[in-house]
Every structure is written in structure tokens, then in C-alpha cells.
């Protein structure tokens, strides 16, 4: 919304009566907008400054080393990078099909009376704080997973796969993935829903006219049209999943190990910072935690920027406005 086209250069009258208040108000607005850029610079600068010590001490090997030992003051990021990527991947695998299915249900299937109440409930799910999901995760979800779902998986044919081997503690990579999936479902559902709503009705009518059934209309006319947008929604969800902290910290088990088994406890970049930052007793320890924060920032930035660009290009092509 460029204002200058509608309100051209201030007329002499305005300039004469209100010279300095107008200018200072404008500068206040410019200053506030610049604060945004300043804050991003501040975040990047503070993290790199804090991480400097660890960067010089460990070099790029920091990212691939699996040793995390405060006693000998040696630090490596790999278990945390692995845990962050794996738990987010699990969350996406669980949440994307469910979220897209729910969005399809809301735009294509559900009776009109039901749509708004379901949307409201999903918005409420988005309002639940991370720490409350964590509390529920510790005392309700994890015991249930340990005693029922994980037992069932371990005793079915899936138990022969390397992903479902080893002792079952309950707190695990899979529990972390499930909790994060619940937390990113609202955003995936609402963005997918925006995209599905922007599919032109002509598409649907054309498919119906060819004699397609309801499901065939969805598959041929709606999903193929909205495919790229849904991919963007999934990437946006991934960005959220990577940075999720409290709930994951409370259910993932917090053990810096790389294991193929999803039943094994893991650790993520965000949760190691949350757990160990106040306990860090050497400069190198704190600096290593800063570097983990920097890694997390760079990864989430790349993923979020990719999602924004993807969804932006779609809006440019007339896919409707995406919030």
C-alpha cells in the first residue's frame, strides 16, 4: 500500500502549519520499522559474538563431533543436530497428512454448520502453551506411549525394524516427534486450508462435469492444483518444529546420543540450551551453547525464508492471500 500515489507531496498549507510534528511522526514510524531490521542484526551479532570462542576452539569439526563432555570441556553438536532434524522430521511425517486431510475435510466435505466450530477448536489448540503440552506429555502421553502404543509396535512385525529396537523408556525421540506434531498441526491445517480455499471452483465443477466422484474431484482438481502451496505449508510447519523447545525438552529424554531407534532418548539443539545454559560453568561451555543457538537460528532462518518465498510466489500467481 503505497500512500504516496494518493497523498502526493504535502501541500504548502500543510507544510506551513505542521512542519516539525509531521516530520518527527514520520521518523518515529521509520524508526519503528527499522527496529525490526535492527533486532535481526542484534540477534545474529550477539549469537556470533557469544559463539566466537567455541568457533575458534573447535572449528567446523564442532558440527560433526559427537562428543559432549563438560568435564573435559569438549563439545560437539552432532547429537543435537541429529535429534533436532529427526524429531522435526517425525513431526512433519505425522502432522502433514493429518493436517492436509483436516484442511480437505474443512473445505470440501464438512457440513457448513460444522466448519466454523472446528476451525475455532484448531485455533484453541494453537493457543495452548508449549509448557502445558510438556506437562501433559510427561504425565499422560509418555506413560500411555510406554505402556501401550510402543509395546504394541515392539511386539508387531514393526519390532523387527532397527527403528523400533531397544528398551522402552517412554521418553524418546518418537514421543518428542508426536508432541511436536500436535503443536504444528494448527499451522499446517490453517495454511493448507487457506490454499485449498483459493482453488477456483471452476476446477471442481469441471471435474464434476466429467463424472468424477467427490474423492476424485479432490484428488484430480483440488490436490494437484494446491500441491505446491501445501508443500509450502509443510515447510512452514518444519520451521516451527525445529525451534520448539519446552514440550520437547520435557518428553525427549535429554540424552546426547545418536541412535537409530526411535524408542531411544534423544536431545535437540533447543532443549540442550534450555537445560544446560544456567549450569554452564566454563566460558567454552557457554560459548558452545551459543554456537548451538547460532546453528539453530541459521537452520530455522533458511527453512522459514524458503517457506515464505514459496508461499509468496504462489500468492503472486493469484493463489489468494496467505497470512
Amino acid at each position, binding site marked *: 500500500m503505497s500512500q504516496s500515489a494518493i497523498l502526493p507531496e504535502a501541500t504548502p498549507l*500543510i507544510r506551513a502549519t505542521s512542519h516539525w*510534528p509531521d516530520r518527527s*511522526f514520520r521518523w518515529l514510524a521509520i524508526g519503528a520499522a527499522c527496529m525490526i531490521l535492527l533486532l535481526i542484526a542484534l540477534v545474529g551479532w550477539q549469537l556470533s559474538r557469544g559463539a566466537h570462542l567455541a568457533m575458534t576452539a573447535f572449528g567446523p569439526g564442532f558440527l560433526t563431533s559427537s562428543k559432549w563432555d563438560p568435564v573435559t570441556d569438549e563439545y560437539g553438536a552432532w547429537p543435537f543436530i541429529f535429534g533436532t532434524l529427526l524429531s522435526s522430521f517425525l513431526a512433519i511425517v505425522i502432522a502433514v*497428512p493429518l493436517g492436509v486431510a483436516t484442511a480437505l475435510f474443512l473445505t470440501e466435505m464438512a457440513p457448513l454448520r460444522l466448519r466454523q466450530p472446528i476451525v475455532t*477448536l*484448531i485455533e*484453541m489448540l494453537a493457543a495452548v502453551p508449549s509448557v502445558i503440552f510438556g506437562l501433559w506429555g510427561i504425565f499422560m502421553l509418555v506413560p500411555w506411549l510406554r505402556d501401550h502404543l510402543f509395546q504394541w509396535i515392539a511386539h508387531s512385525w514393526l519390532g523387527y525394524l532397527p527403528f523400533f529396537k531397544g528398551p522402552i523408556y517412554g521418553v524418546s525421540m518418537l514421543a518428542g516427534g508426536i508432541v511436536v506434531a500436535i503443536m504444528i498441526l494448527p499451522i499446517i491445517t490453517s495454511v493448507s486450508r487457506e490454499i485449498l480455499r483459493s482453488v477456483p471452483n471452476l476446477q471442481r465443477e469441471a471435474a464434476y462435469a466429467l463424472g468424477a*466422484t467427490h474423492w476424485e474431484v479432490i484428488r484430480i482438481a483440488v490436490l494437484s492444483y494446491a500441491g505446491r502451496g501445501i508443500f509450502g505449508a509443510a515447510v512452514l510447519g518444519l520451521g516451527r518444529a525445529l525451534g520448539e*523447545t519446552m514440550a520437547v525438552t520435557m518428553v525427549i529424554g535429554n540424552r546426547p546420543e545418536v541412535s537409530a531407534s526411535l524408542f531411544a532418548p534423544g536431545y535437540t539443539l533447543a532443549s540442550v540450551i534450555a537445560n544446560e*545454559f544456567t549450569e554452564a560453568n566454563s566460558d567454552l561451555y557457554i560459548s558452545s551453547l551459543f554456537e548451538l543457538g547460532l546453528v539453530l537460528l541459521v537452520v530455522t532462518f533458511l527453512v522459514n525464508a524458503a517457506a515464505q518465498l514459496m508461499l509468496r510466489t504462489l500468492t503472486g500467481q493469484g493463489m489468494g492471500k496467505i497470512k
Partner: protein
Amino acid sequence: MTAATDTFEPSRAHQTWRRWKSRGMSVLLGVCAVAVISPLFLVLYFLVSKGASALDWNFFTQLPKPTGELGGGMANAIVGTLMLLGMAAVVGVPIGVMGGVYLAEYGSDRANYWIRFAADVLNGIPSIVWGVVVWALLVVPFKTFSAYAGGAALGFMMIPLIMRTTEEVLVLVPQSYREAGLALGIARWKIITVIVIKTALKGIITGILIATARIAGETAPLLFTALGNNFWNHNLSEPIAALPLQIYNYAISPYDDWHRQAWAGALVLMGMILTLNIIVRVISRGHNKSN
């Protein structure tokens, strides 16, 4: 020849199969929708069933008891959360609203593109990273964890949220209002504050409340800024208690009585957030009707 007729006239069995497949998929999508909203009911059910029994008058009026003693409450954490939200608003509201004013009233398309992009980036920064950054910015130089630091961390998180919602509602104000103001010879800053912002005030307040509800439950940015406190604290340059922090600390503790209190605290926090959301809904419903 028979093959050709087959393709032109699908068999009755195939038609039936397609119809049943369609019905089956409808049911499946419905089941998925139920699966997506069921965690909400599960969480709310356990919050109420576990939390309500631990809620009593003491919970709202007393300080936490030392380890091993039963009872006590979270009065200081409730007040602390309200104070932190107030400080966050002091940081986030002016910058967020003025940034929104810039986007809607002043910025060129090109500048707006980048500032919106930057706001989205800022919004995507993980909350734990805010905690680390504010620790380096406000805790290390002053050598103490403080309520100021916690409020600043939450305030920074509010800025992009408020900015985008403010912009959205300001853009909806008809151009003719601004032109009418100019025609009367009113200064531009007065047009913006007295006409444009006033017209869109309901929407701006709604945006502020939504942002407040979003950060009210944030824990990660407070872990190493506000830190938490077991006592009353009215000195903002010292550590302060917050409801989400208290819930977290009690939840990971080994004591049953603390777990009970964590549920009660979670119920209160959820109640605060849902109340904010309901207020937003009531306001915006009135707004839609008036249009």
C-alpha cells in the same frame, strides 16, 4: 472390439467401487479431523481433572512452600506473569504499532516487501534463541537476572506480531477518510492518529491482545532472563517469578505435591489465555457486525 467398449462404458462394478472409495475417503478425512482436535480435549480434560482439585484459595494468595512442605501457592508467579506481560507491552506495543503505521501509511512497496519479510523472519526465530540473546544483552552487562530482561525478551517477540496485525487493519481504513482529512487541512500525523488509528482502534487492540495471549505462555525466553523467584519481588532489576516457569520447574521435579501444583498452575495459565482469546472473539464479532 470388446476392449474398446470396455473403456467407453465402465462396468457397473467399477462404478460402485469408485462410489464406495469416495465414501470411504470422506470418512477417513473426517476421522483425521477428529484426530487433530482430540489432543485439545485430552489436554483440557486432564488440566481440569488434575488441576481443579489442587486449586484453592491458598493457591492464589500464598507463596510457594520450601521443598518437603505441603501446600503453598503461586500468588507471586501469577502477579509476576502479569508484570512481565505489562513490561512486554511497554516494549512491544509502541514499536509494533508504529511499525504497522509505517507499513500502511509511509513505506514504498519495495521497502514494505523487505520489512514484512524481516518481520516474518523475526517471528520465526525460536523462542529459546531470544532467551540466549537477551541474556547476553541485558543479563551479562548488569550481572543479574532481572524482570526487565524477561519483559524485554517477551516484548521483542511481540513486535512482529503486533506490526503485521496493525498493518492489516490500517490498510482496511478507506482512503477517502485520509483524503477528507487532507481536504480539511489537517496535518498528516493528526490524520493518522486521530482519524486512521482511531477508526481501526478495535482491530489494533485485538492484535495486541492476540500477541499477549501468544507470549503469555512462553517459557523458554524466561529461563535465563527472568529466572524465577520463590518470593515476592517488587524490584524489577531482580529475578521475578512467572507462571510458565513455575509450571516447568514443578513438572520436572520429583515431588507429587509439586506435580499437583503444576497442574493447577497450568489450569490457571490456560484460563488466562482462553479468557484473552474469548475477549478477542467478542471484540471482533462486534466489529464484523458494525461493518
